[in-house]
Every structure is written in structure tokens, then in C-alpha cells.
């Protein structure tokens, strides 16, 4: 099936392969599951003029083979650290749907993609810090933290998120960063709760670090396995497990310092 306008000059398959994977890379880094990445990369490749696209979604890399008639090209690209950015994810998907309609060349699509990546808004850092503080305080209540500890959990989690952003700007290793943030959050939450006479100091220490629990990768791991991508799912599970160990190490160090949890 000829999905593109014959008037439009056909782009080289290498360019189509690299640009399609660029969409996949952004989706992966924004927290999409393997099935979503696969679907949208195929749609972009089709829109750019490939007859077929076979994508391999790995944890740290993507590999694609695109074909047009007898021509075939295979390319690979790295994927950065996993994160969650829903508005960028949505903007990339919307652009992919636009590209799928056909009529856009690689140069135009690349320019649109660059613009989407640069112009997608983010909330200001201070607002994210406060929102994370509120989320962890709410988590605290769900875990049975008493009212006296809610304020300290809020403050410690917000401080932890501020610290996490600072470390991310310095491109610190995410696992080491998790331990440091967990330590700061746990000690802050625990000390504050103790000062205010809380009876749930240990729970407050845990609640203040729940911002670090990798919930989205954990759920994506299961989805990937259910979708028939056990390799990607397993890699995500290993990442989640190691992250949890490093987060818990921070809580453990905090408990040692405050003499809690024995």
C-alpha cells in the first residue's frame, strides 16, 4: 500500500529509521510502555514512507529495521534514563499521529519534534516540590501516620524532592541519588515527627521517602510482560528492585542515626 504522496520526495530509509526511533526514545524516556513505543514508532515510520518497520524495544536501546520495496535499513539508538513526563509523552504521540497522515518529510518532522520537546511546558520546580510533599503526606495518612507527623512528612518530602532535582541537574547516579534523598527525607521526617510528639515516627520516616518508589516503571514492567515483551519487563523489574534496595538503604541509615525501627 502506498501511504505517501508520490509528489513528495522520498527520504532515505536511514533517516526514516533514525527519526522514527527518536520518537520511540522520547516515549521511552517519558515513561511509556513497550507496546506504546512499538505502536507509535511503526506509525511514524509508515507516515514517513516505510512499507514496514520492525522495532526491538530494549531497556537501554532501541533497534529498528525499516523497509521500502527491496530496500532495507537497520539502525540502533541509545535510550536515556527512564522518567515520567506525561505532557511531553502526549505531545509526541499527537505529533506521531500527525506524521502518520503522510505528506511530511524527515526534515520537517525533525524540526516539529525538536519544537515539541523544547516547548512542552513543565511545572515550576517549587510547585513540584510542594506537590510531592503533599503527596507523601497523603501517603503517610494512608499508611497510618498520625496527624502530628503529617507536617514533618510534607516538609521532609518537599525538601527531598528539591534535593533530588539538584542532584539530577548535576547528573548524579540515580541509585546513589536515591539513597541520599531517602536519607535526607527519612531523617527530616523522623526528626520533625519526634519533635512534635508523634507516635508514628518510623512510619513518618518511610512516608517521607515514598516519592522515590518507582511506581510507573514497576507497573510498566508488568504491562510489558503481559504484552509479550518479557526481556524489557524483566530489565525494568531488575531496575525497580535495585532502586528499592538503594532507597531502603537511605531509610536504614536514617533509622540508625535516629535510633528508630529497632
Amino acid at each position, binding site marked *: 500500500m502506498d501511504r505517501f504522496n508520490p509528489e513528495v520526495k522520498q527520504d532515505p530509509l536511514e533517516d526514516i529509521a533514525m527519526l522514527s526511533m527518536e520518537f520511540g526514545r522520547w516515549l521511552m524516556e517519558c515513561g511509556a510502555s513497550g507496546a506504546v513505543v512499538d505502536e507509535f514508532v511503526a506509525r511514524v515510520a509508515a507516515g514517513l514512507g516505510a512499507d514496514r518497520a520492525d522495532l526491538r524495544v530494549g531497556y537501554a536501546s532501541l533497534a529498528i529495521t525499516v523497509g521500502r520495496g527491496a530496500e532495507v535499513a537497520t539502525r540502533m539508538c541509545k535510550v536515556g534514563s527512564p522518567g515520567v*513526563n506525561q505532557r511531553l*509523552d502526549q505531545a509526541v504521540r499527537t505529533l506521531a499521529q500527525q506524521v502518520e497522515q503522510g505528506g511530511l518529510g524527515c526534515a520537517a518532522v525533525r524540526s516539529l519534534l525538536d519544537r515539541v520537546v523544547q516547548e512542552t511546558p513543565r511545572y515550576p520546580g517549587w510547585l513540584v516540590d510542594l*506537590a*510531592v510533599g503533599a503527596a507523601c503526606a497523603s501517603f503517610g495518612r494512608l499508611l497510618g501516620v498520625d496527624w502530628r507527623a503529617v507536617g514533618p512528612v510534607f516538609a521532609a518530602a518537599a525538601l527531598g524532592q528539591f534535593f533530588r532535582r539538584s542532584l539530577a541537574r548535576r547528573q548524579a547516579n540515580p541509585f546513589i541519588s536515591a539513597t541520599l534523598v531517602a536519607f535526607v527525607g527519612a531523617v527530616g521526617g523522623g526528626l520533625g515527627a519526634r519533635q512534635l510528639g508523634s507516635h508514628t515516627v518510623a512510619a513518618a520516616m518511610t512516608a517521607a521517602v515514598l516519592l522515590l518508589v518507582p*511506581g510507573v516503571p514497576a*507497573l510498566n514492567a*508488568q504491562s510489558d510482560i503481559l*504484552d509479550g515483551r518479557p526481556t524489557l519487563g524483566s530489565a525494568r523489574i531488575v531496575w525497580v528492585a535495585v532502586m528499592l534496595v538503594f532507597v531502603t538503604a537511605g531509610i536504614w541509615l536514617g533509622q540508625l542515626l535516629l535510633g528508630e525501627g529497632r
Partner: protein
Amino acid sequence: MSMDYALVLHQTVFGGLAALGFGVLFNLGPRSLVWCALCGATALAVRSAGLERGWSLEASSFSAALIVGVVVQLLRRRIGVSRNTLGVAGCIPMVPGGFAAKAILGLFALTSPTLENPDSTLIQSLVFSLRVVFTIGAIATGLAMPTLLLRLRK
């Protein structure tokens, strides 16, 4: 079995707030944040009601995730946002992070030279680990089922 409605309401409100906070962290758009909070509140309402009825945490979490997944699919035209992301963000308050921390802290404690009850510590740690695995599995399966069924229908 009687239900503690005040507790269910409490969990619903804080589930919604937790999802809202995580929605900001995940950079959901302002309109999607409202849906995210509603998903979180629904999830915690269903899970708490299930727990109050005597269901296990895993069964309650599965039911909650399934209902969130169905609601998100039914409202997909109005929501105008990536449905899977919204469902995941709404179910984040149910991810048993506290249990995961307790499980790993228990494993750390096993290596302590002054440990008094290694057997009970190990069993407790194992139980927490299994609950984490089963609960996350239940949430992800519950969320994925409506999408997978919809794909089958197509």
C-alpha cells in the same frame, strides 16, 4: 460485616490527594490533574471498601485497578489524555512502597550480629516481599485488562 465509612472516606480523600501530587510530578496537564485525582480517589475508595469487606490487599487492589482501568476507557473521549498514563498515575497511591521498604529492611536486619529472632524476621520479610510482588502484579493486571480486552474486540 459492617463497613467503616469514615475510614473509606478518609482513604478516598487522601488517595485523591496523593494521585494529584504525583500527577504534578509526572507533569500531567492541569485538566488531566483533575481526572488523575478522581482516579486516585476511586482507586482508594474501591480498595478500602474491599479491605473493609474482608478481601485481601491483593484482591482489593486488583478490583480497584480494574475499575479505574474500565472508567478511564469509558471516559476516553472526555479525558483527552493518554489513558494508560492516567490510569497508572491514579493507581500510584496503591503501590505498596511501605511494604517494599519493610521487606528490604527486614533483609538488612538478617545480617545484624545482634538479631534475636532470625526465623520470624525472615518470614516477615518474605511475606512483605510477596505482598509487594502480588499487589503490583494485581494492580498492573487490573489496569491492563480493559486495554487488552478492547484490543481483542478490535
